């Protein structure tokens, strides 16, 4: 490697030219770094400006609180997304109900109990799940879970909020597991050693020292899992049945915010109220995931403070 060094130093002109070039290069890389900010701000600005157009016609309050979504009404159109917000929150909550305990328990097992060969084998397997495209999971929901749920609960079909929840839970498991495991392994060794030295069992140490100490990191893992579920489109579009009615329970078919955009954007003429309301739904989604990412960030930051202690 050092062999290639000397020739290129010789070839590049005087000191002054070099310095100018260096500055230019530094600016070039800075610009590429700043590009990320442009993208985020660009997405935000675009969604917000389209949303204003929608809210001028519909009204922000009725947009968020009305239950009826009927963009092509015969007499008048209605654009209330409350039912969709409930649908999105419902499948996400359902997913977290089983993915959080299962994910955190798995992370705890991998971090503290598993032998090294178990870790070697099972961690890549879990990474494999993260690689499965969401459309494949949605397909799995149609061909496997739907008939299964229909049979178990005696339903006409199994395309409902429960099916969506199961798939979203599966989908967010790898995120929850890997980040929670990182948090658990990052707990300083001294905590564990002190606890064991005082005669605590390994389980007592894990449940009362390590998990509470990793609390911030584990919370961040859960937040990121929630973020993934809120924004997921293909699995819910395929597995939840997409009915427009207000859901009564987990056996109801629901249409999430993401599914609404995906189903309707292809058919709507540009620059109509309907078109802009779809962007406004995008804005609501963006705000929700932004908030969740921000919370995750705060918790992760707190986790790194604990580590320094």
């Amino acid at each position: 490697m050092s062999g290639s060094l000397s020739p290129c130093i010789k070839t590049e002109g005087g000191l002054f030219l070099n310095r100018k070039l260096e500055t230019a290069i530094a600016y070039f890389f800075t610009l590429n770094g700043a590009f990320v900010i442009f993208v985020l701000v660009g997405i935000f600005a675009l969604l917000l400006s389209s949303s204003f157009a929608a809210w001028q016609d519909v009204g922000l309050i009725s947009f968020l609180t009305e239950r009826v979504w009927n963009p092509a009404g015969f007499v008048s159109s209605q654009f209330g997304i409350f039912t969709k917000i409930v649908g999105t929150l419902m499948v996400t909550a359902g997913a977290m109900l089983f993915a959080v305990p299962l994910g955190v328990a798995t992370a705890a097992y991998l971090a503290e109990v598993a032998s090294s060969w178990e870790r070697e084998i099972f961690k890549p397997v879990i990474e494999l799940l993260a690689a499965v495209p969401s459309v494949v999971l949605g397909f799995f929901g149609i061909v496997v879970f739907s008939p299964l749920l229909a049979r178990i609960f005696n339903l006409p079909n199994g395309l409902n909020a429960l099916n969506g929840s199961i798939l979203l839970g599966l989908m967010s498991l790898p995120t929850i597991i890997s980040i929670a495991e990182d948090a658990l392994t990052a707990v300083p060794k001294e905590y564990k050693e002190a606890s064991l030295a005082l005669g605590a069992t390994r389980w007592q140490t894990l449940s009362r020292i390590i998990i509470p100490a990793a609390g911030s990191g584990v919370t961040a893992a859960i937040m990121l899992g929630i973020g993934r579920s809120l924004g997921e489109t293909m699995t819910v579009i395929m597995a939840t049945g997409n009915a427009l009615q207000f859901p009564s329970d987990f056996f109801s078919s629901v249409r999430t915010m993401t599914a609404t955009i995906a189903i309707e954007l292809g058919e709507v003429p540009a620059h109509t109220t309907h078109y802009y309301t779809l962007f406004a739904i995008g804005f609501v989604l963006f705000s929700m995931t932004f908030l969740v990412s921000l919370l995750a960030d705060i918790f992760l930051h707190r986790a790194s403070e604990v580590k320094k202690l």
Partner: protein
Amino acid sequence: MKKSQLPAPLGELAADNGRSRGHHSLVEGLAFGLLRLSMLLVIAAIFFIFYDIFSKGVGMISWEFITAMPRRGMTEGGIWPAVLGTVYITLITAAASVPVGVFAAIYLNEYAKKNMFTRVIRLSIRNLAGVPSIVYGLFGVALFVRALELGTSLLSAGLTLGLLTLPVTITASEEALKAVPDSFREGALALGATKWQAIRTNVIPSALPGIITGMILGISRAAGETAPILFTGAAFYLASLPNSLSSRFMALPYHLFIMSTQHHSIEKVRPIAYGTALVLIGLVVTMNMSAILLRAHYRKKMRG
């Protein structure tokens, strides 16, 4: 030390240990058993998914299935246009996101100072990673398809996916740059190299395998995405293969979506859907595995 002087949780533990040893090992056995059961449940679910797709899809896989055009309203024939479309779209995605991603990572790891600007960039990256894919789709429609008038095309969809994979590419590239020991930079600088010469001759070459790993992970994500391409260029069915950047295209994930929800005789085309799912999952998993293996190989080399 008296019990009262211990931190609260440790004090509790000390108090607890008045109970019998047997009681504790029983509780511990049960608790660890439960944790292990949780993990096995997760693993079993993963195996079940892969087994189901593999066992029902493998019968469809043949040279003809992969390389033939669909026939008779997509009820027969192969999935060649979808395979080719996915290959094209991942290449365009890589071309769009890798340069910017790597340059941004070089900025973050080599040039950035610990200031507000850098913190905002990092915050933006983490937030972009959390933006729902359908929102990228909306952005792609508004910016590439309409405002820049690229229409629904390979280019629009590729650029949209490029933005989506940017956080993955940056994070992975930065990790690769971080793994290059400082002595590599210092050695070059001590020999009189400028900062950029040190980066170009010493840092980038040793970070390259890691950067390639990140690139593969990014495009494997892009290969499986459906929502962002729904309205930026993917087509239900095309009689001819895409022949330019402005062509519309078929793609494996979108094809699977259609074959399992939109096709006029869904039950009849179920085997094709299974075959498509297997090809897609095979493609994505192969890319992921090679990235993971490459990373492992490279880490071992760096340590040794």
